[in-house]
């Protein structure tokens, strides 16, 4: 890379971070207003629409729920959603909007996809354009993109209320259905609508017409030659190009940190992400709401600095991860013996372009890989399986940190808040005082719930990986060789066990074993976390707020941000360094050695 390329790369990264910082603040304040019910004035159209929706659906908006009622409503709503997605896939051959006459989805794949989309993971064992009808993409997947995202946001809002409210005897946290509806109609729907129309302008299709069929340029030229009698041997051959309601699906897949694409190759497809501008805007959409929610938290607890500190901690980890990944992908020539060999013939660019698109180049591919795994988005604009060993380690580790560096909409921040509680607890142990966060005392029950939240994902990831590498059905699905094959399996369970959804795509995950094991991992990671988080909220909301004293550790300082980053990294490192050593680290050392 020349120095001009480096400066343009740095400029793109800087522009992205600055734009994100500028946009997430007003959005965060707006979202706080929405959840506090002070945005839509009584009598406005949207307020009336909200009221009508509640009336039609028998929702009593004034009814408060305690943590178990809230969790119950959330679980029932998600279970019903999962069943609907399953049924729509199984019957897609009988339903409308199926111009390509695609067959019903097999049971194991339909189960995997249903869990995948309801749990905001959006792991793609299905092949987009080759498996799912337009009807399934719209009525099953697009809908769950909205609902799984708003479920995460609702649980977060309930958790924030546990700090806002105090001494609530009945443990009321709000109404799940109201929080969910507000997330959809005030936040996700308007943003998606604007983004989708913008994306169509950039070149994303939005149509219900069947796939385009045509004779490509070269074949047409040759067959016209054949017609003149010059080239008899060439037959006219038509090719197909998959189209569909792409833009509407892509907009919400980014905003809701879902990540399940319309096409098999997700946002690297030229019709799903046609231009550098569409790429920048989609990248912004990935982190916009997770970053904005940090501000929402600060506004709702009436201490904006508390939100800034969380945002600062996330950004710090993000920037370091980005730098590491960028370096690894640009220094490919010394990592790959093949490229040295080409160098002898005069290779122009040492950067790793396998599995990357020319219009994005290395910098946008790396920026995306880091953003999509920092958030639990999981959409891709390059093939992570083809990244260099250390380049691929970065997205894997970001997922393994528990998806708390921005993370999924809602769930990322409640994960980070759990880490904040653990941080004040550890700090409290050091000085021998009862830890407190925002005036709420953190005691034994709270710590038990926090432990559940941070222990379940690593358990699912490591046990799942261990199971898959010990069984022939698990080993047989790998595509690459040596330690990279192990990385493919570790990546798959890191992704499913943290509800990310991106993949080392070489792994043939569409087998009964992986459909069920990864489906179970996604299920556990989502709901076994949300339930203890709500239990934690239920315990905290009943506590009185104690005024900050001399011994209280301030949690709105850069010092606390540094401590928090340390706790997140140490916990993730201790848990996953052994597994990462067997995969990307060994692969890297072998490649360096083979020169």
């Amino acid at each position, binding site marked *: 890379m020349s120095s001009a390329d480096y400066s343009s790369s740095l400029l793109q990264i800087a522009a992205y971070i600055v734009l994100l910082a500028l946009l997430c603040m007003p959005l965060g304040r707006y979202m706080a207003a929405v959840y506090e019910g002070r945005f839509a004035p009584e009598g406005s159209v949207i307020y009336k629409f909200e009221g009508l929706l509640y009336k*039609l659906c028998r929702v009593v908006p004034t009814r408060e729920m305690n943590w178990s009622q809230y969790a119950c409503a959330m679980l029932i709503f998600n279970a019903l959603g999962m069943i609907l997605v399953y049924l729509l896939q199984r019957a897609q051959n009988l339903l409308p909007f199926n111009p390509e006459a695609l067959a019903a989805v097999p049971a194991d794949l339909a189960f995997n996809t249903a869990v995948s989309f309801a749990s905001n993971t959006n792991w793609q064992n299905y092949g987009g354009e080759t498996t799912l009808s337009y009807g399934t993409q719209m009525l099953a997947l697009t809908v769950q993109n909205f609902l799984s995202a708003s479920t995460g946001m609702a649980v977060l809002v309930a958790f924030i209320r546990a700090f806002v409210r105090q001494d609530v005897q009945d443990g009321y946290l709000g109404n799940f259905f109201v929080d969910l509806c507000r997330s959809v109609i005030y936040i996700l729907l308007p943003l998606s609508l604007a983004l989708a129309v913008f994306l169509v302008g950039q070149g994303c299709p939005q149509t219900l017409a069947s796939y385009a069929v045509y004779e490509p340029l*070269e074949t047409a030229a040759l067959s016209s030659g054949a017609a003149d009698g010059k080239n008899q041997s060439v037959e006219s051959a038509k090719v197909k190009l998959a189209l569909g309601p792409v833009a509407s699906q892509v907009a919400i897949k980014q905003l809701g940190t879902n990540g399940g694409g319309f096409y098999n190759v997700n946002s690297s497809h030229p019709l799903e992400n046609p231009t550098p501008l569409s790429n920048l805007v989609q990248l912004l959409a990935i982190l916009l709401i997770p970053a904005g929610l940090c501000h929402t938290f600060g506004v709702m607890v009436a201490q904006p600095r508390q939100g800034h500190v969380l945002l600062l901690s996330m950004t710090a980890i993000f920037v370091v991860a980005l730098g590491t990944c960028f370096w690894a992908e640009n220094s490919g020539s010394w990592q790959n013996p093949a490229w040295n060999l080409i160098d002898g013939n005069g290779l122009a660019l040492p950067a790793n372009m396998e*599995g990357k698109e020319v219009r994005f180049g290395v910098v946008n591919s790396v920026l995306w890989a880091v953003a999509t795994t920092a958030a639990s988005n999981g959409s891709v604009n390059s093939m992570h399986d083809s990244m260099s060993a250390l380049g691929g380690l970065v997205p894997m580790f970001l997922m393994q940190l528990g998806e708390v560096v921005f993370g999924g909409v809602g769930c990322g921040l409640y994960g980070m808040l759990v880490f904040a509680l653990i941080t004040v607890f550890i700090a409290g142990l050091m000085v021998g005082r009862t830890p407190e966060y925002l005036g709420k005392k953190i005691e034994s029950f709270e710590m038990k719930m926090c432990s559940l939240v941070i222990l379940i994902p690593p358990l699912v990831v490591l046990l799942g990986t261990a199971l898959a590498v010990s069984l022939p059905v698990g080993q047989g699905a790998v595509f690459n060789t040596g330690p990279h094959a192990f990385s493919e399996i570790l990546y798959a369970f890191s992704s499913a066990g943290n509800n990310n959804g991106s993949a080392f795509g070489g792994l043939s995950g569409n087998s009964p074993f992986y459909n069920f094991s990864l489906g179970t991992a996604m299920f556990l990671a989502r709901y076994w976390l949300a339930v203890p988080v709500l239990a934690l909220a239920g315990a905290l909301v009943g506590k009185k707020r104690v005024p900050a004293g001399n011994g209280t550790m301030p949690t709105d300082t850069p010092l606390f941000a540094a401590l928090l980053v340390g706790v997140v990294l140490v916990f993730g490192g201790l848990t996953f360094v052994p597994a990462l050593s067997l995969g990307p680290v060994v692969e890297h050392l072998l490649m360096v050695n083979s020169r």
Partner: protein
Amino acid sequence: MLKESLPALLLLLAMTILTGLVYPLLVMGLAGLFFPHQAGGSLMVDESGAVRGSTLVGQEFKEARYFHCRPSATTAPYNGAASCGSNLAASNKTFVDAVEERVKLWRRSGLSGAVPVDLVTASASGLDPHLSPSAALAQAPLVAAARRLPVRDVEALVRRRIEPRTLGFLGEPRVNIVLLNSALDKAYGRDNR
């Protein structure tokens, strides 16, 4: 339990209609109003009115008188109905061999100078329509020879079609090979050889 079930079911149905039907159809309506060409997949037609592809999606070119797109990992290269990348890791012998083979092929067809990396690596989608300017310019002498045209004319055509970074800093400079080949046919005819 039952208290939450009925609202949950009704809300799921209402949201399915709102976000699964109203929203995509609304986007489609607005798209048809403002961007009808893009909404249909940015399809391009030749002078006879027949569809020849999408301006955004790469195509396979094998003849020497056309610029070639990047290697594609789809089953049948540039298969627009089933996108995929190679997923090959840099440590995989298959990948090492494939790259070596591609370099040899380019050398055999007369490519001189440095081999641009995008000419010998598969794209993420298998449908990448672009090449870096250096990869397109490297092919200009080969295309010119096959078409019996002066090299500088073909090079000039390539240079005219270089798209710079968006707003001066976004993305990478690139050449759309489908549009370049189409322009080549328009300027010099489909059959000169």
